[in-house]
């Protein structure tokens, strides 16, 4: 089975790189992967989103309307993509960016307070990976060892020293994810 994932937030939140880490890790684990970003000048300050498909089957269309899993990191994205979760699918959010909360009753909803936690840790740069930790805790499509390999593959050499810190944050993410609603 393939997992169709959407990550959506502000351009500055590292949405695209979050997707890249997932895709790299999936690849290291020998899976089929596809990463499809939104692009162009609208991203300047505006919303960015990326589709990541990870799975065992050949990937057909990279352009999806509905997703198994959606990660929401700001209000605009919630407005735009709450309806894109497949019935029975999963929605993750970080409440920090939100003024309203998801309301659908037919999906599973999880909260990852990654902004808050990373600020508390004094390192907002690990926000990304923390979100992934929360995600993969619930949707265990990729092993942490491959996340590590993925990081080595996707980050430039000079950033490799930061990887242990990132793995810490990943685990933190696994720890902080809360179930809001499970079907």
């Amino acid at each position: 089975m393939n997992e169709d994932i959407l990550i959506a937030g502000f351009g500055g939140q590292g949405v695209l790189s979050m997707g890249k880490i997932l895709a790299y890790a999936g690849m290291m684990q020998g899976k089929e992967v596809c990463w499809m970003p939104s692009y162009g000048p609208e991203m300047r300050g505006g919303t960015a989103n990326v589709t990541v498909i990870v799975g065992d089957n050949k990937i057909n269309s990279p352009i999806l309307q509905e997703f198994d899993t959606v990660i929401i990191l700001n209000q605009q994205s919630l407005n735009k993509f709450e309806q894109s979760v497949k019935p029975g699918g999963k929605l993750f959010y970080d409440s920090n960016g939100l003024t309203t909360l998801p309301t659908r009753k037919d999906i599973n909803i999880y909260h990852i307070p990654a902004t808050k936690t990373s600020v508390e840790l004094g390192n907002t740069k690990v926000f990304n990976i923390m979100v992934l930790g929360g995600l993969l805790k619930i949707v265990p499509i990729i092993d942490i060892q491959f996340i590590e390999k993925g990081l080595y593959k996707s980050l430039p050499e000079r950033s490799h020293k930061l990887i242990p810190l990132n793995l810490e944050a990943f685990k933190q993410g696994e720890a902080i994810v809360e179930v809001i609603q499970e079907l």
Partner: protein
Amino acid sequence: MGEDIQLMKGNEAIAEAAIRFGVDAYFGYPITPQSEIIEYLAYEDPYNKRTGMVVIQAESEIAAINMVYGAAACGKKAMTSSSSPGISLKQEAISYMVGAELPGLIVNVVRGGPGLGTIQPSQADYFQSVKGGGHGDYNMIVLAPSTVQEQYDHVGLGFELAFKYRNPVMILSDGAIGQMMEKVTLTPQLPRENKILDWATTGKTPDRERNYITSLYLDPEVQENHNIKLQAKFQRMKDTEVRYEEIMTDDAEYIIVAYGISARISQTVITMARKNGIKLGLLRPITLFPFPSKRLFELSDSLKGILCVEMSAGQMIEDVELAVRCKIPVYHYGRMGGGVTSSTEVFEKFVSLFLK
């Protein structure tokens, strides 16, 4: 694994392929959504760090394609890339390259038009590529990759065909395939060849007559003979270079014909249809010129209808209709805004056209 597998953007795959296939030179001018090609090459700096491949950012698309002309006329593997408006600017030179029988690779990562349009993906440059956006009777082989792997492979294939026929080859990609990342199996580094080709302008050595590269034939008769020769070449391409992929066409009652990103979307449509017990298949042209007309004609005997899915107002559909000699219903579905259509949309369209 042994194999060299990388996760790459479609655009990056083209750039890496250029280096690995031993291309001699890339000349380009930035334009979204394909600037990653020149950026990747600039970063890799193959001239100094890998193969000696030349990478130049030209002052315009016109200069870039004419640099390709100059290098190609020396027998070099030279390429350029751009997106729709920039490709329109290259039409004169493309016609010149065909006229002068020069090999070369032109990549068009299509965006939405007409005009400045949008930077989002589109497939509305089919006619321009396949029928000839430049002047005069000419054709070039047009390759339509639908995966990042094919983006990579078509660079090698493109140059092979370009030199086989001494004719430019186009890769007709789009913003979606250019921007998306997939796994790519990389091939081993090939050397740049530095071959001296007997027709190329590499300096007239004493053992041969001078070579000159031209598309100018003032005498109408000479021009006509030249055109007859070119047409024979295009016919040879039609006879030998047709490439396509078929998915579940064996028992199909209907097929979708789609290329590039639309073919990807259509693959999902096929799955949906089969789940619903509908015998739908897919024919994906890999070469748009030459078009798989013969195969479509064969298939049409056992088909009830064809849906062409293109991100345009309907261009390839003309070639499909001609291919099946208008024997069966052929419909078009597509989007024209740079927004990519969804599989569900296509499926619903298919059902409403053929099954209601």
